[in-house]
């Protein structure tokens, strides 16, 4: 086992994914990852979570609100006056 413990590894996942670990910490992180199935799975699950969040459906502005805003913009720029 590397010097890093699993309970420390899980707290470094976001810094790792952001590329924000310093080179030494990143090496320890990757060394641990290579040896530990549990932490590999944890990291994959965080990645899955991040991509699932990115797939949530979008809301849309109701059409009347959109029309009101476009007309407010035109009015402001004096075209509709």
């Amino acid at each position, binding site marked *: 086992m590397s010097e890093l413990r699993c309970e*420390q590894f*899980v707290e470094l996942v*976001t810094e790792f994914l*952001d590329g924000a670990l310093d080179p030494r910490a990143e090496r320890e992180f990757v060394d641990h990852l290579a040896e530990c199935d549990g932490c590999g799975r944890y990291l994959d699950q965080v990645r899955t979570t991040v991509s*699932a969040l*990115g797939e949530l459906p*979008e809301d849309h502005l109701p059409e009347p609100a*959109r029309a009101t*805003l*476009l007309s407010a913009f035109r009015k402001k720029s004096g075209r509709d006056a």
Partner: protein
Amino acid sequence: MSVPPDETLLPRLRAGDDDAFALVLDAWSAGMLRLARVYVSTPESAAEVVQETWLAVIAGLDGFAGRSSLRTWVYRILINTAKRRGGRESRTVPLSSLGPTVDPAAFAGPGEPFSGHWRELPAPWPTPEQHTLSAEVRDRIATALAGLPERQRAVLVLRDVQGHTSAEVCAILELSAANQRVLLHRARAAVRAELATYFAAAGEGRPR
């Protein structure tokens, strides 16, 4: 059509180019609705917040000093508008007082063999057969999001739901890079834990 960079966009908006306005309105409103929902409780009030924000943007365009990107400026107006309307006391948790993001019981305790290492591997998750999320998974994620403290939720929505960069999120929410990352880390861990609970229950064929 993608939104042009500020140096092209801003002069067009100031010149009253309504195609340019329609472009940003359509490109940014979905993200703004989602961010507004962090601060107000219903989709209707989120839509009103977004509408009020755009009216403030239209009124303020000529005075925009360009110290941030246009989108950051719009988002900051949105957050102020939403907070004013939400009127909620924001649940600000001091970052220094926060504990671990994974239940310490998942790891062997001091004095046990392999102290600090997994007692049992995290249970595997099913591999999604398609790319679209099941409605149930989507509901669980929405529930987890709704339960997060406001600042964690704002960071998670901007970073992971909408895909903004760390630098953009820091500018929008006026956070340091380190604080932004702590908030993101806690928020992601909470949503992962919610999904882990859901998949564990689903795997055993019983609702929890």
